[in-house]
Every structure is written in structure tokens, then in C-alpha cells.
């Protein structure tokens, strides 16, 4: 039983066809990654799932419910957390307030405090800087904050869009350590990532997306060995 199911999804920006018929699925407890070049449509797909873009045709369903015409804040209530490309933390508010806002769709104040404490434990750097404005954090810290903020909504599915973007390699390793830890805790994750080798390393399954269509799919290990993937995305 898949948690997220997408069938023949098409998305248009004006005259430009960003997605030309994508089908994929994510089962509970899985990490699925999408790899592909710049402009292939990965982020568009993520934004469509999160309700920021509405599809032209095709279907998206999450736990059996259609997401086709959903608005983004309702997506969060259904259990989809989104750590967007470029992080988009609220730069003029404190780290703690960013996390509080992450729980905006929830009503339980006690649970929120407990979750903040929990993520401060996972991300000790955020705890150190909890009263600092998010805009003053380093890129890596902002990425951690964006992930923690998405988790604050207690999502069933986490959308992680380009978590390595603009980060130094050492920091990227830290981010991926966090992703592994989330997997161990049973979180379902859809991961979009430029660094294909890292993404395929943590993923159970993967899709290759090129100019708006899916060209390959398989387990992470299969795609890591695939000749086409190796030459196009792994620089081998």
C-alpha cells in the first residue's frame, strides 16, 4: 500500500511543460529519491505534491486522498512536511520561533515544546542558537533548521528538496547523517538531490527524471551501478 501515489502527472507553467506525465509511488517507511539535472522538473514535482503548484492533469493521492486541487496549508494538515529548495527559513525571526511556526498547523502546545526539545537534541547547533535570528545562521545550520521546521508538523511524509544545495562537503555529510537517522526512526522521505551518489546511497528506491519525464527507476543500489546513471550523474 503506497502512501503517496502519482499517476501521469502533468504540470505547466504558462506555455512551458514542466512535467510531462510523471508516475511514481512512495510506500510508508521508504526513502525514495529523485535525481536528475537542473531544470529536469524535480523541484516542480515537489512543489506540486506540497500544493504550491496545481497540476494540469493526472492524479496525486496521499493516503488515498486526492491532492490535485489542494492548498499548501491543507497539505501540511494531512501530514506532508516540506523542507524546500533554498531552505526558506524565516530570516527575521528567531530559531525557536521558526520551529514554533513549523508547528503552526498543530493545536497541542505541550507536544510542541516537547518536540522542540527533541529536535534541539538532534541538532545541538540549533539549540545553541535558539534565540538568534534564522537569517544569521550559516547555510548548514539553516538547512538543519528547515528540516527541523518541517518535522515540527509531525509529518507522515517528509519532502526534502536539495538539502545539500550550497553546502560545504563536510556539512553535506552531516545533513545526510541526519537523513539516515530519520530513516532509522521510520520516517517516510521523498528526497530530491543533485548529489546523486549520496542520494542513491541512502535511498531504498530511486527515479531518474529528465526534462519532465521519468527515464529510469530502480533500487538505490541498482541505479548506483547503472552505466547511464554513472556517466550522466556520477561523473564516472
Amino acid at each position, binding site marked *: 500500500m503506497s502512501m503517496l501515489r502519482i499517476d501521469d502527472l502533468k504540470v505547466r507553467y504558462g506555455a512551458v511543460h514542466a512535467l510531462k506525465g510523471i508516475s511514481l509511488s512512495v510506500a510508508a517507511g521508504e526513502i525514495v529519491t529523485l535525481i536528475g539535472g537542473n531544470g529536469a522538473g524535480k523541484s516542480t514535482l515537489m512543489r506540486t505534491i506540497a500544493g*504550491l503548484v496545481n497540476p494540469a492533469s493526472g492524479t496525486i493521492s496521499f493516503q488515498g486522498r486526492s491532492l490535485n486541487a489542494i492548498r499548501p496549508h491543507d497539505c501540511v494538515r494531512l501530514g506532508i512536511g516540506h523542507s524546500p529548495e533554498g531552505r*526558506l527559513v524565516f530570516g*527575521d525571526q528567531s530559531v525557536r520561533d521558526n520551529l514554533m511556526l513549523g508547528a503552526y498547523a498543530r493545536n497541542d502546545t505541550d507536544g510542541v515544546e516537547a518536540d522542540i526539545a527533541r529536535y534541539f537534541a538532534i541538532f545541538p547547533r540549533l539549540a545553541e542558537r535558539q534565540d538568534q535570528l534564522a537569517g544569521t545562521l550559516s547555510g548548514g545550520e539553516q538547512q538543519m533548521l528547515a528540516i527541523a521546521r518541517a518535522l515540527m508538523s509531525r509529518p507522515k511524509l517528509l519532502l526534502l528538496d536539495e538539502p545539500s544545495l550550497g553546502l560545504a562537503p563536510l556539512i553535506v555529510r552531516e545533513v545526510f547523517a541526519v537523513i539516515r537517522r530519520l530513516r532509522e526512526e521510520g520516517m517516510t522521505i521523498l528526497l530530491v538531490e543533485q548529489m546523486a551518489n549520496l542520494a542513491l546511497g541512502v535511498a531504498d528506491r530511486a527515479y531518474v527524471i529528465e526534462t519532465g519525464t521519468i527515464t529510469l527507476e530502480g533500487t538505490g543500489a541498482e541505479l548506483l551501478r547503472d552505466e547511464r546513471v554513472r556517466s550522466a550523474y556520477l561523473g564516472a
Partner: protein
Amino acid sequence: MTAILQALASGLALGAIYGLIALGFNITYATTKTFNFGQGAFLVPGSLVGVSLLLLAAGKPHWGNLAPSEMTLFTYGLATLASVAIVGAIGILLYYCAIKPFVGVGGLNWVLSTIGFGIILQNTALAIWGPASIAVPSPLGNEVYRIAGAGIRPQEVLVAVVAIAVMVGLDFVIRRTRFGKALRAVAFNPQAAAIVGINVEKIVIIAFVISSALAGLAGILIAPITTASVFIGLGVALKAFSAAIVGGLTNARGCVLGGFLLGLIEALVGLWRAEMREITIFLLIIIVLVVRPSGLLGARSVEKI
């Protein structure tokens, strides 16, 4: 000297009015990059609705003159609440008619649509109340307070106190409450706000309600000073707009600061030569903007290339 004190007092009251309206510009600009260019027309129902309700309550027709005895702090307070509620509700209409179709489209179409909305509102008021002005007694009476020899009108004190209380309250709401944080999140980046579960459109509508309600409040506060009429709005709203721009449209405290600066300058220049008020103010504004294009406290926007 007493003249200066007197001017300072009325400048503060006037500045508080400008500050209130400017704050309304700030709230909607921060969330949508638009604001109501026809805000002047919103002062009109603000003052007239309240006054008419009091007239009707006193068993008179909606258009007439209130006896000072019919105006107490209590009735004025009720009238103010009614004005604020009704003008706030008009803000919802404004959003759906004049703002929503143009948000995020860019260009100047929202400027014209809000001006158009204002024209319709003003002419509706004209059809209801006619062109003549209504004298409105102050709930505190018209007996002038003497402070250090300077005569200060009680309504000016009331205006300043109420406006400052509202501004401080709003500042607290925006900085400390859950709603305020959501509002700032929308202002910072609407998409980021949406993905944490904030209903962006709801927040934006509330912003327009607040903005309109502030204009309504300004209308009823200023009525005992200027009289209530269909034509009071434009001049006041233009100065409030100037206050917002000079203080920094993106900064709430800047807008309030701009309001007080403008009110004080206007009152002080008026002491010297009344006819030079507008000329001085607008020349000063142009100079300030040349030196600081985003206003005194506004964030400097740097376009990333």
C-alpha cells in the same frame, strides 16, 4: 512659546492619525506588496457611520447635528467600535474586489483598482450623507485644557492617547503573538509560510481588515477635530501615505515615526505660514527619498544579480 506648545500638541494628535493609517499601509504592503491607494475614502464611513448611529440612537435622522450632551465617552466608544467593525468588514470586500485579482501580477493595476474602489465607496457615502459636513462634538467637551499657558483641545489628547495605545498594542501583537508571527512569516515569504501550514490568504485578508479598521478608527477619531464629511479623507490619507513612505513602508515602527514627524512638521510650519505646509512637507519628503530611497527605517533592498 505657548504657540509652539499648542502646535506640538495638535501636531502630535495629527501625527498619531497619520501614524495609524500609515501602519495600515505597512501591514498590507508587508504581506502582499500592495496597499489601498483609496484609503482616504475609508475614513469617510469611519466618521459618518459612527456619528449617524449616535444620531439614530438619539432618535434623530441619520444626518444632522449631535448635541454635546448626546456624546459621552461611552457612546463615543460604542460608535468607534461600530465604525471600526464596519470599515474593517469593507476591507474584506476591498480585498476580493480590488486586491486579489492583482496580487503577484506586478505592475500598477492594483493602484488603479484600489483608487476605483475608493471612488465608489466615497460616492456611496455621498449618496447617503450628501456633501455637507457634520459638526461632531468631542466626548470630552470643548473646554480647552491650559497647560503652561498653552490651550490644548481635549479631543487632541484623546486622539493621541487612543492612537498610541492602538499602535503599541498592534506592535505587541505583531511581535509576540502566534498570529503576529504568522503575519511576519507571510511577509517574509508567502510560500515558506504556506508550507508550514499557514493559510496565507486568511492572513492577508486579516491584514486588509486591520488596515481598513485603522482607517475607520482614524476617521472617527479625527471627526470632532475636522468635522465629519465625505471629503475629509483624501488629504489625510495622502499625508499618511507620505508618512509611511518617509518612515519606511516595510517597517511598522518607521511608519509610526513618519506619522509623528509629519504631523509635527505640519503643525510647526503652520505656525510660520499656513499656506507653506504642504509645499514644505512634500519637498522635504522628496529630499529624504533621494537620500534614503527606502525611507528612514525601511530595509534597503539589494537586488541580487
